[in-house]
Structure formats: C-alpha cells, structure tokens
C-alpha cells in the first residue's frame, strides 16, 4: 500500500533521486560504533542536530506563552514555569538544550579538527560549520535576555558593552542590538526576541542546509 502511494507520487514528481540523495547511501565501517566503539565520536554532529530539533520544537511551544514585552516578559515566564502544564519541562529542555548544543557542537568541532576532516575537499563545509558555531553562540546570547530577569538584564548589559567597545563600528552595533544609544529596555527586548526567533534561526537553517548538502555530496571523510 505504502509502496503504491510512493510509486504514485514518484511517477508524478520523480522523487526517487531526492530520496536516493537523502537516505540511500552506505555507512563506512570506520564511523560505525557497532564495529569500533571509539567511533562514537562520530555521533556528536548528529546529536547536535538532534538537540537543535528539540530546541526548535520546544522554542515553538514556549512562544505560545511568552510575551516579548518588558511589562509581561518575566510574568509570562514565571507563569509558564509555575502554572502551565509541563511548562517547567518544556522550558527546562530549552534551557538545558542551549547548553548541551554548545557542548555537543564543541565536541563535534574537536572531532572534525583532530581527524583532519576539514582538509581538501571539505574546506567549505568547515567554514560553514564555524558559521553555525557563531550563530549558535548568538542564539545563546540573545535567548539569555528573554526571561527579563535580573541576570538576563545585567549579562546583556555587559555583552552590549563589549560589543560597543569594537573600534569604529562598536556604537552602531550597540544601537542595532539595543535599539537605543543609552537605554537597555523595551526596544532591546523586542529586538533580541526578533533576532532570537526570526533572524538567527533563518540563518541557521540556511547554514544547516548547506552543511548537510555538502556532507551528502562529499561523503564522510575516510579513515585516518
């Protein structure tokens, strides 16, 4: 039955090449932990993606309650944490996922570095990967402000001060992030919300797509 549906769609849209590109490939022995346990280091990238998916899903649910506004942001998070069914779990997963994704991404970077996998012909994929690293740090930084509690406000003040100390364009970056030359307040919160929820995820999706297309194109690097 499923095969018939597949063939029906395939005849009209010719999806088999797409399917072949995504799923129909062989996994070599040296990256398979079932054959060499030490190959578990090749799991870090996949786990990073796994947590990223969880971050996207939990974040989508968080926005059902979160209000990006100085008056209500903290109250909405407090309500979410203490009143909403499973709110504490969803927020907890988003909170801890933010840390775990950094850990896993760092381990993945080290694996790629120490296996020399960034060398020809995979230079471009390495650069895209470093870009993903930067975007993830940006997501962590912008997400930290959103609960609008004490540490969020003061950590962001420090972060924006550091950004403002960049020579020449520091002041512009500061105004772009904070929405004002002096105040860190309502405008900052909505800007960080927009950056956290729309701008950076959009960049992240584009980079992830490039990352994965390149992996499928080039295959995984050979054994050392």
């Amino acid at each position, binding site marked *: 039955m499923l095969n018939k549906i597949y063939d029906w769609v395939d005849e009209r849209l010719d999806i088999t090449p797409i399917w072949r590109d995504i*799923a*129909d490939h062989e996994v070599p022995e040296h990256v398979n*932990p*079932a*054959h060499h346990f030490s190959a578990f280091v090749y799991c870090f990238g996949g786990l990073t993606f796994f947590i990223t998916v969880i971050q996207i899903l939990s974040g989508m649910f968080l926005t059902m309650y979160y209000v990006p506004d100085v008056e209500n942001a903290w109250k909405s998070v407090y309500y979410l944490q203490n009143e909403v069914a499973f709110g504490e779990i969803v927020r907890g997963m988003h909170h801890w996922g933010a840390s775990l994704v950094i850990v896993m991404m760092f381990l993945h970077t080290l694996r790629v570095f*120490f296996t020399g996998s960034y060398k020809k012909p995979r230079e471009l994929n390495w650069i895209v990967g470093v870009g993903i690293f930067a975007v993830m*740090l940006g997501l962590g930084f912008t997400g930290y402000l959103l609960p609008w509690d004490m540490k969020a406000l003061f950590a962001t003040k420090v972060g924006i001060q550091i950004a403002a100390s960049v020579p020449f364009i520091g002041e512009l970056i500061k105004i772009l992030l904070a929405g004002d030359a002096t105040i860190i307040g309502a405008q900052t919160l909505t800007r960080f919300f927009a950056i956290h929820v729309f701008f950076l995820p959009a960049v992240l999706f584009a980079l992830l797509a490039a990352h994965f297309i390149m992996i499928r194109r080039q295959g995984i690097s050979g054994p050392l």
Partner: protein
Amino acid sequence: MHRGKGMKFVGDSRVKMNDRMPNIPKDYSEYPGKTEAFWPDFLLKEWMVGAVFLIGYLLLTVAHPSPLEGPADPTNASYIPLPDWYFLQMYQLLKYAYASGPYNVIGAMVIPGLAFGSLALMPFLDRSPERRPSKRPLPTVFMLLTLCAIVYLTWESVHNTNWEKVHAQGEIKEPTPEIEFDENAEGFLILSGDQGKSCIACHGADLAGGGAAPALLGNELTAEEVAEVMKNGRGAMPGGQFAGTDEELQVVAEFIASLKAEE
C-alpha cells in the same frame, strides 16, 4: 541528459516519464564488506543513541528546573552580572590588566577574533595533506593550548565567583501583600504605643516587616497562634517582647490575626 525526440513526460509537466523499477530497496548482499546501509539499519542505531541521550537530557531537565531570577530591575546597582557558562572564559579574560581598561580591545576583540578567525580559516592555515594529529604537530599543539586556555579561564572564573552571593542576589522576592487596616483599631493603637515598641522596631510601623522580621501583613496564623508567638517567640524572634498586659496582648493578637490577604 537525454534530449530531443522521443521524450515522454508525465501529463504536460516537465517530469520525465520513465520505466524505472518500482520502489524496492536493494538487497543487503549488494553492500560489500562491513559497510552498512544508512536506511534503515544505521539510522535505527543512530536513533537508539539518540534515545539514550534523550533519557540523560530529560533526567537533567527534571532534576534541575531551569532557573528564573527576580524581574529585571535596572536600578539595582549592586548586582554582579554573570554571563552564561560558555561565555565565562571571555568574561574572565576581560578581567586581566592587559585585556581590559585601556587594553580592552585586546581582550574583547583581538584575542577572541584571532581565535575564532583562525578556527574559521583552519583549512587554509593547515594546508598539509596529512590528517593524523601526530603528523601535523603545530595545529595539534595550538588547538590543545587553546583548549587548556579555555578550561583554565572558565575554571578561574568559576573559582573566583562567590556563588552563594550570586544565587542570593537574584532570588525572587515575595511582594508584601497590600492589606488595608483600620489605623484606629484598638489593637493597632496598642501595638504602636509603648507596649509594642519592640514589636514595631523589627516588624516596622507599617507592619510590612524588614531585615530578618517577616511582614505581619498577610500572615497565616490564628489569634491563638499569634499570642503564642508573642509570648514564647518563634525562630529568631525572642518571646516576651510585648510589654503590655495579657488582655492587651490578646487584643493585639486578634488584630494581627485579622491582617489576612483577601482571598
């Protein structure tokens, strides 16, 4: 690509008609050696790893609820800001004499910029075809040194932070409930008179508490319990502070017990 005459399409679309085999996966005997089909064998294993990971992740989430401090208060000047843990190393770097103040550019831009920039340009800095870490000593040593620096800076930052203070400064303070009471009530007159001097000294003339003393407003005690506390004390509060007669004490206890938050 096949072009020209004889091409057939699906309907009037641009999708080529073909007589490809229907969707039947390859036989596993066609995969040589120990390689494994990604779909579905290896993917199943990846999902098992994912499931184990997810269990650990959920245990972490359940065991440690995500923190939430009190609402942001920009007027609080005594708050010591701390970034999330993965930025602690940068935060620590900016505390050193030659990476802060007039040298701020070094700590905030030059060092992180060099580190991140050389990470991004790694394939062009390390151009030898060798992949084994032992056969490209320079990149390996630089990476290990950077790792040590990151671990050291993070450790130093964690070590130098007064965590008790950090946790205490962000605690959510329960707001004092706003309860209106009759300032001419007999109990209040006695309490704010000479008999209640030492009560007011700690609990405040507005009965909103202060320092170590809790607010009398919105307490959850009955008149008997209040009288008991007034006579014998509770926690850090010593007994026998009320200087009036037993009758007056009873009136005051009933007054305090009446200061309930409205349901």
